[in-house]
């Protein structure tokens, strides 16, 4: 009897292992492969000049990768995809608005924006962490709702407090009635302050070396963090929060640190993003940040529980290639560029939905198998 039970147990274990590894495999590689195919088709259908596409990709990598990389640490720490990087982006925008008020341009303005945004980002990150610690296991929906809620507060501050409670009297940025920031702020004074420091032209492809260098440095920093004791704690949390707790890791504190790092990185990332774009849409530049960064990360084959630097890079590359080509492809295929634009927002939402479904499904199956074994 005991023997037969044991074998049964082994078989189920084996089955389970096979099943999860197959699922892992699917989530690991099928998504990027699928997107490589879609991108190639899109590139072909768009009939764009390859040099133009590569140039655009390089620009977009330098612009967006920082934000995507900001997502990695919370994933490692088992907190899922941090939809609340929107809040970090808001901190970044506070820095940008501040230097607009002080009228500091160029590299020094950029550095000042980073400096000003950091304490805000630390504060916001800490607050986000406190709320997420109250909603363990529901971090993603909470961070999403928190992002929307913070957006309301952000609008309240910049729409009504600016010029009234916060005394700023600059007709260039304040609306004509003396209250609230204008919808769009011109950021020409810091545009390309990083990108154009060193920009060699290699075979028609202009490379913003310093921006890319910043990304590389960040990659190394993340790698370093993951290898420290703190990083081990993150991974332990990601594996199983209960076991981590039992083995003496201060889970709440570690989670706070993870989310604060993510928020600060998002703030800096948003500043890098805006110095390239050159205009700040005061009330909606930040809205899509979370969605696009998360979609990019997932396209690279990351999941809710696993994300690497490589996946972030591959994902950003593929996702933004799709972004560049899809309006043109839509125009050539359907005679309507609008279709291409809707298609890419479908892809962004769809890839997030798919990955959430796969994750939830796997979690549910694991729980059920465990229950059966018990």
């Amino acid at each position, binding site marked *: 009897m005991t023997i037969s039970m044991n074998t049964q147990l082994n078989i189920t274990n084996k089955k389970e292992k096979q099943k999860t590894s197959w699922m892992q495999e699917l989530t690991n590689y099928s998504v990027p492969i699928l997107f490589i195919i879609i991108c190639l088709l899109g590139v072909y259908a768009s009939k764009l000049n390859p040099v133009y596409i590569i140039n655009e990709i390089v620009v977009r990598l330098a612009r967006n990768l920082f934000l995507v990389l900001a997502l990695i640490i919370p994933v490692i720490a088992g907190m899922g995809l941090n939809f609340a990087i929107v809040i970090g982006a808001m901190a970044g925008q506070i820095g940008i608005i501040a230097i607009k008020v002080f009228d500091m341009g160029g590299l020094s303005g950029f550095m000042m924006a980073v400096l000003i945004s950091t304490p805000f980002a630390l504060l916001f990150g800490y607050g986000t962490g406190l*709320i997420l610690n*109250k*909603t*363990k*296991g*529901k971090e*993603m*929906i*909470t961070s*999403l*709702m*928190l992002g*929307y*809620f913070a*957006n*309301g*507060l952000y*609008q*309240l501050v910049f*729409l*009504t407090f600016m010029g009234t409670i916060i005394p700023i009297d600059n007709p260039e940025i304040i*609306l004509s*009635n003396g*209250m*609230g920031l204008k919808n769009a702020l011109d950021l020409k004074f810091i545009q390309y302050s990083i990108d154009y420091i060193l920009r060699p032209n290699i075979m028609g492809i202009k490379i913003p070396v310093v921006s890319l260098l910043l990304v590389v440095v960040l990659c190394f920093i993340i790698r370093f963090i993951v290898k420290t004791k703190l990083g081990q704690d993150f991974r332990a949390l990601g594996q199983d*929060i*209960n076991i981590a707790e039992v083995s003496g890791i201060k889970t709440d504190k570690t989670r706070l640190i993870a989310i604060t790092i993510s928020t600060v990185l998002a703030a800096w990332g948003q500043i890098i993003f805006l110095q390239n774009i050159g205009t700040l849409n005061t009330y909606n530049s930040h809205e899509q940040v979370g969605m696009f960064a998360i979609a990019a990360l997932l396209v690279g084959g990351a999941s809710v529980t696993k994300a690497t630097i490589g996946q972030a890079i591959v994902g950003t590359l593929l996702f933004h290639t799709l972004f560049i080509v899809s309006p043109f492809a839509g125009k050539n295929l*359907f005679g*309507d560029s*609008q*279709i291409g634009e*809707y*298609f890419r*927002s*479908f892809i*962004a*939402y*769809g890839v*997030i*939905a798919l990955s*959430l*479904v796969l*994750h*939830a*499904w796997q*979690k*549910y199956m694991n*729980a059920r198998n465990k229950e059966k074994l018990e």
Partner: protein
Amino acid sequence: MRDFWKKITDKYGYPKVFMTMFLIILCILAVIQKQNLPGLLKDSLVRVGMNGILVLAMVPSVNSGTGLNFGLSLGILCGMLAGCISIELKLTGITAIFTAILISIPFSAVVGYLYGILLNRVKGDEMTVGTYMGFSIVSLMCIGWLLLPFQSPDMIWAIGGKGLRTTIALAGKFAKVMDNFLSFNILGEPIPTGTLLLFGVACVIMAIFFKTKTGVAMMASGDNPKFAAANGINVNKQRIIGTMLSMILGGIGIIIYAQSFGFFQLYTGPLMMPFMAISAILIGGATAKNANISNVISGTILFFALLAISLPVINKMMPEGNLSEVVRIIITYGVILYALTKVGGDN
């Protein structure tokens, strides 16, 4: 005083108490500002009737155990599609609205069935999955609205001759049909009797449904799935039925909403709509596990009366900028966030 405060917050929950206080303050401000009070009352009633069924759609999904229906936009899309079909058929008036509702039901039922199957595979993560399923299907339907073979010149772009417009005006179709049904004047303002009546009827039907055998089984499987399963209730089936009902109500809800509002807002219009309904029912005192008709009615009245009254009052205080919209955003997501922290983690 403190005891009293504790007593009412315990009984009604913070969202309800705070919203009531906010509403009272707004009413006082409205009186001070010499606003048109009967007009505000009418606006509030119109908004309540407009959104009531969408809020009611949360009840079956909550009680069947799938939680708040963050994917309600799927049902809303079905309702919009049915509404467009009824316009395409050149129908007007009451016929148009009831044809639209009849067409929407099978669509919503099928979508609800499939969505229910999905939700049964992602137990515990319905909210996140639902939100993003909603988002992705709404953006997929954006392509659909462009490509669907509708011909009615009232709906398609005048230039190019294909693809539906972003807002479809219902004037001359079925705009205000229910609002004007049996409408009478109080203090010189028309009351949207038909819409309110329909909302009332829907609430009564829902209340009766939860007295039937299926309804009781659904409640049981939502309350305690293991206990229900032990008693021979097919929990997964009940969850699917709950989701289907929720989607059907979502489809009907948007048609009623549109007739009162006067427009269908296609494309990204439905994207954020579920959150309003969720917030309303949470204000009414519902939780992710428990919701009843009184939650729906009180929540709808509180939330939408608040929005209706805040608009002119706040605009008078701060004429420029849309502070009332900001207030709406903060309330909607603040309430949802509060409910999420209240539920706590599942560990």
